[in-house]
């Protein structure tokens, strides 16, 4: 059996919804004084009992309606949200593009953001420098690399974010709706690059509403619904079933 790159075992995630965020200090006092859960927050299960594993080299799509837990499970896998129950096991270095901007600081230039982002992923300065030309080349934002990111168009931000994530050569790549941001040319180049990544044995987990891309890129799809796995199987089967219901 092939080695699992990502394994989620009975992962669940509970959030507390703050109905009035600004009063949280007051709420804490109430809770301490009354020794009970104040009425201002209610728990919300974003994920319940998620079980799946992704083999090394597999390309898996997560599909489902908004709020079905796709982005949350990516964040739990990336180690950003601790799971409320269950466990996630990873083998290999992980890079993620989880939201537009991918953690870029708006006041810093592209170069500075690349340095910080790369370092946060665990790369050394030398490794970042070695990959810098590749990143610049792929992002194709020219001299804007020396400009603060806040002056970038959303397409430029997405390109740079994607370029960094793919060029750090992770073993596992998580992408959340990245391909829908750029234009056609960028999308095609991304797909080409992802294919290369896939051929080299990289593991990929991507969230997308664009079923065409999903069918093109992935061999397997997981359909998520209301924080659980509704269907898990061959990409076309799952996509067809999903379309039939939508």
């Amino acid at each position, binding site marked *: 059996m092939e080695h699992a790159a990502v394994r989620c075992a009975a992962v669940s995630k509970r959030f507390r919804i703050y109905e009035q965020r600004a009063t949280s200090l007051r709420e804490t006092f109430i809770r301490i004084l009354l020794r009970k859960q104040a009425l201002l927050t209610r728990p919300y299960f974003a994920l319940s009992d998620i079980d799946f594993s992704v083999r090394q080299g597999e390309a898996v799509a997560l599909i489902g309606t908004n709020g079905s837990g796709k982005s949350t499970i990516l*964040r739990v896998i990336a180690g*950003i949200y601790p799971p409320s129950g269950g466990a996630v096991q990873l083998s290999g270095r992980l890079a993620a593009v989880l939201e537009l901007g991918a953690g870029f600081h708006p006041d810093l230039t592209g170069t500075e953001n690349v340095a910080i982002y790369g370092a946060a992923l665990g790369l050394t300065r030398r490794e970042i420098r070695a990959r810098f030309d590749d990143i610049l080349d792929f992002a194709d934002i020219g001299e804007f690399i020396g400009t603060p990111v806040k002056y970038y168009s959303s397409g430029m931000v997405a390109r740079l974010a994607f370029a960094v994530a793919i060029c750090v050569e992770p073993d596992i790549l998580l992408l959340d709706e990245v391909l829908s941001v750029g234009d056609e040319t960028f999308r095609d180049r991304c797909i080409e690059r992802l294919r290369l990544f896939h051929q080299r044995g990289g593991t990929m987990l991507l969230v997308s509403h664009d079923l065409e891309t999903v069918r093109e890129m992935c061999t397997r799809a997981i359909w998520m619904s209301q924080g659980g796995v509704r269907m898990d199987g061959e990409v076309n089967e799952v996509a067809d079933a999903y379309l039939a219901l939508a």
Partner: protein
Amino acid sequence: MIGAQMIGSLRSVYRYRELLWALVLRNLKVKYQSSLLGFFWTMLNPILTASVLIVVFTNVVKIQIPNYWAFLMSGYFAWNFMAQCLNAATYTLGEHGPLARSIAFPQEVLIISTTISRLIEFTVELLLTMIVLAVALHGRVPPSYAAVPLLVVLQFILCLGLQLPVAALSVFFKDVQHALPIAIATLFYVSPVFYAADFVPDWMHEVYLLNPIARLLTLYHETIYKGMLPSVEEWGAAAAFSLLTFLVTYSIFNRYKHLFAEVL
């Protein structure tokens, strides 16, 4: 068990040292790139405040300390370092929220990086003070100057120890941003910044020295202004206070840091 946890956390910070340096560099760059006079502004604020304090407390409220200017300078910059770090702690994690929501990394690195970049500026201020005092007050380099680096290390540890809980609380409660300036203003008066710790009446002294900043500032006054080496007890107490504060607050921080990404 807590010890093992602590070592694990410190080790993970060390693993992210490249990120630490990248952040320190960018902190300094952001500060000095956008303003023409750069370092001048950083120096101007504390120098201006220190000058006003010197003028007021030598001419208006006459504080009986010989060479008051030298006394004030020997402790003021250390106080300023502390106050600025505490202030920065209220927004550092929020500022880097997008990064924390995209990549998992030990978030104390963010705090440490702001402290180190401030420390670099403070070191320059302190060196200038020491040179001025050596020339204009002591007429020589007092041997007690050799102990100043140790003092700075202790202050750095204490500074982190006070920043960590402030930063963690700021993530959950916006109130901290409003409360902290009041706390700093109060600390300014209950710490020996513009007066000497000996002025405090004996009966208050024990309570007064529970403020860890007070102990450190007293040590600055002794080594830099008086040119005397503090006693071993004074060093021991200051070191114990700094380390203990750091260890306690860091373990609290570690307990809550995994929740930051959800709230930020």
